[in-house]
């Protein structure tokens, strides 16, 4: 039996008082495609940094080719043939493909002068080795994401690696680009190079990985050949949440108008003939593969795709959603997937983050009213059950779950009729997650809001929505679970949804 290419034994790593990795063992065989699955905050990034020598370990062992490595350093990791492609690719957008590929080698060779012919030849060889056609003279900024990724892969292969680690490689790719990426990865594998995918996008990983290791809160919770797992099972292991036994029940109240009625909504190239009606108090799930148009649907409703055709009615009135301002004026709220870059002012206080979308309501004649602000912030903290002694703490000090509550709370202060949640609990720990779900359900019921919940987390959708829609190639193609036909059995619904998504992949 051959020794694993890389083996971690009972690795422990703390950051301050937090245990990022709590006795993690993992082995990667030569030439295999391995998937490291886990939610944000599960310890995936720490694990990459330990393997690549950026972070040291507090306890445990690292073995390469069966030999113990005392202290892993970045230089040593590279010497052992370990290459990491980070999510941001670490490329120079202002430089050409050729220079991006060849510059690192020039630096490491300790050269002082640049030989452009030699650099170009190096770059050409790297591109040829990958078997893709890349214009060496194009600046990297001018390439699409998939092209930049190829540059990053080609650069990593220049070091003759034995293990290529790719951090969330499919996050910003369309489904066609993912397929092309997988062709490249299989080709890399055919040369005996092992690939470690680090991801929380399970559906794609199932298609290519041979073995999987699942991390949760710094612990390996499961691992083995991929055939032993299905998507719902992996998600359950990653999140640790047991699926709710009772789905969210919704009684169609005899209201005259639905809250949201969308007719023939289309946006060229991304959305096609979307018809959707959501009543007061409904929570409607939207699932779909990457690039299915689910995020675009949210963007269109939030006024970010102003070139749409079709009609949107809110409470029976026709509305034009040509800008975010229109959407907000029509009481639509959108909580984006990436709250850190799109939603929060991290160094600012909880209060400011809660109130910043409502200053118009909290002022008179352009002057803010302090007591109205205090009351609003306090009520939002109470409503969203944000765990903090004071609203003056900077948001950056809160846990992921509490940060997410702040983002949702901000929009609730505007008393929305329609609340769109995109990945509402990504990177949120299990306990917090259940709390957020409870809050969303309560708010939908009490305020008669229409909630659209977009998520990759199937148990989340099944457990909280009274029906789940499936999108594919910009169309609504299916409606999987519908409590209007009576309560369903959650596990069966989850399996049905999982199967449906796999058919579409």
């Amino acid at each position, binding site marked *: 039996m051959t020794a694993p290419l890389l083996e971690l034994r009972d690795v422990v790593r703390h950051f301050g008082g937090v245990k990022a990795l709590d006795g993690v063992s993992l082995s990667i065989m030569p030439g295999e495609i391995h998937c490291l699955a886990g939610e944000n905050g599960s310890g995936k990034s720490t694990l990459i940094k330990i393997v690549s020598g950026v972070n040291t370990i507090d306890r445990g062992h690292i073995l390469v080719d069966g030999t113990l490595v005392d202290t892993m350093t970045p230089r040593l990791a590279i010497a052992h043939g370990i290459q990491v492609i980070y999510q*941001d690719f670490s490329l120079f*957008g*202002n*430089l050409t493909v050729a*220079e991006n590929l060849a510059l690192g080698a020039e630096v490491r060779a300790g050269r002082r002068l640049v030989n452009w012919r030699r650099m170009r030849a190096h770059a050409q060889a790297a591109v040829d080795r990958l078997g893709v056609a890349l214009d060496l003279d*194009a600046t990297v*900024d001018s390439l699409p994401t998939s092209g930049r990724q190829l540059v990053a892969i080609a650069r990593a292969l220049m070091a003759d690696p034995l293990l290529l680690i790719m951090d969330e490689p499919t996050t910003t790719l369309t489904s066609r680009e993912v397929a092309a990426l997988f062709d490249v990865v299989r080709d890399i594998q055919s040369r005996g190079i092992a690939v470690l995918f680090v991801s929380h996008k399970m559906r794609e990983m199932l298609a290519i990985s041979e073995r999987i290791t699942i991390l949760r809160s710094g612990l390996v919770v499961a691992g083995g050949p991929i055939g032993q797992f299905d998507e719902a099972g992996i998600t359950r292991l990653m999140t640790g949440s047991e699926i709710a036994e009772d789905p969210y029940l919704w009684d169609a109240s005899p209201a005259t108008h639905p809250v949201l009625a969308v007719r023939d909504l289309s946006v060229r190239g991304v959305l096609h003939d979307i018809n959707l009606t959501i009543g007061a108090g409904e929570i409607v799930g939207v699932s779909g593969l990457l690039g299915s148009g689910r995020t675009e649907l949210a963007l269109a409703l939030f006024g970010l795709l102003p070139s749409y055709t079709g009609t949107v009615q809110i409470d029976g009135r026709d509305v034009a959603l040509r800008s975010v301002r229109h959407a907000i004026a029509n009481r639509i709220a959108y909580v984006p997937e990436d709250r850190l870059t799109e939603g929060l002012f991290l160094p600012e206080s909880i209060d400011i983050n809660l109130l910043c979308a409502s200053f118009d309501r909290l002022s008179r004649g352009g002057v803010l009213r302090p007591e109205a602000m205090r009351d609003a912030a306090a009520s939002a903290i109470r409503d969203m059950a944000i765990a903090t002694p004071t609203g003056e703490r900077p948001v950056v000090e809160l846990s992921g779950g509490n940060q997410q509550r702040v983002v949702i709370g901000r929009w609730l202060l505007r008393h929305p009729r329609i609340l769109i949640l995109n990945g509402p609990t990504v990177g949120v720990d299990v306990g917090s997650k259940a709390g957020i779900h409870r809050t969303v359900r309560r708010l939908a019921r009490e305020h008669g809001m229409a909630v659209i919940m977009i998520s990759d987390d199937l148990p989340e959708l099944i457990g909280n929505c009274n029906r789940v829609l499936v999108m594919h190639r910009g169309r609504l193609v299916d409606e999987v679970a519908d409590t209007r036909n009576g309560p369903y059995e959650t596990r069966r619904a989850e399996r049905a949804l999982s199967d449906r998504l796999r058919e579409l992949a």
Partner: protein
Amino acid sequence: MSNTLTPVLSGRADSPRLAWVLKRPELGVGGLAVVAMVVIGSINPAFWDAANLFSLLRANVITGILALGVMIVMLSGGIDVSFPAFAIAAMYLTIKGMIALGYDGVVLPFAVATMIGLLLGLINGLFVYGLRMIPLIVTLGTGTAVRGLLLGAVGSSQINIDRMPPALIGFGRLEFLRSVGGGNGLSTMVVLYAALAVMVHLMLRHTLIGRSIFALGGSEEAARRAGFNVRTTIFFIYGMAGALAGCTGLLHGSMIWVANPRDMVGIELDVIAAVVLGGTSIFGGRGSVMGTMLGVFTLVLLTNSLIIMHIDTTWQRIVTGSIVILAAAATSWRDRRIAA
């Protein structure tokens, strides 16, 4: 080897022709210069006199060398507004010293002025790298402090031609092609400027430290991961900008035969305007020596021609201010276009 999927990935600008133009900002500013010259020449044909063209080129020298330094800083994603203060401090200190010691000469004083500029520049580097401070704030602070220190501790009186070291003035007056210009030759300082420009170009294009400046302007994190020593690069950048400023300061004094410690106030905007006009991105990572020289030429052309055309000099400031805004708008449009 073959792969089933071989997409050709190349630049995605709207058309190959537009992409070609976008990559060459020199064309835009060069075209602007040609148009301006034709227009000005048709209004006042005296513009084309060799004497006028020579004086125009001479007027490029000081702004031009300073612009080379600022361009290097801007390529790395930083900015420098301290260089006029450094230039004047280097000049005034050097000339004061020469008078005090009774020394006259050219090479040693220039070496001293350059060293003073270099040291001051390294102080900028210390703050920018060591304390991770924003370059604009650092250089505003060091520039102001150096100016204050110069006036307060060294002297505030102007040194006029009667007390200026003769060798320096002689150097500043060197010229050639006198027969072409009808008695007024082309200043030899233009050659010095051209030589420095070639040197900076070679440094940026063909040395690894030069490429590290571009890399830093592209992404500091990626530069670190690629193995560049970011500290060395930052000290090099600010040191180089300071050295160029120090050298230029003394050159300025010897060309105008006066050492005025209150000189060059507000010139930073002109220089930055010229650099931006030459296609250097205010976000770093893009720009060239050729573009910068053309930017300087165009700016000097426009502002000087206002004088020839008897337009009030206050309009120069309006032209400069407008150029900064228009050129920055054009480059950021270009950057968005490339990254579209």
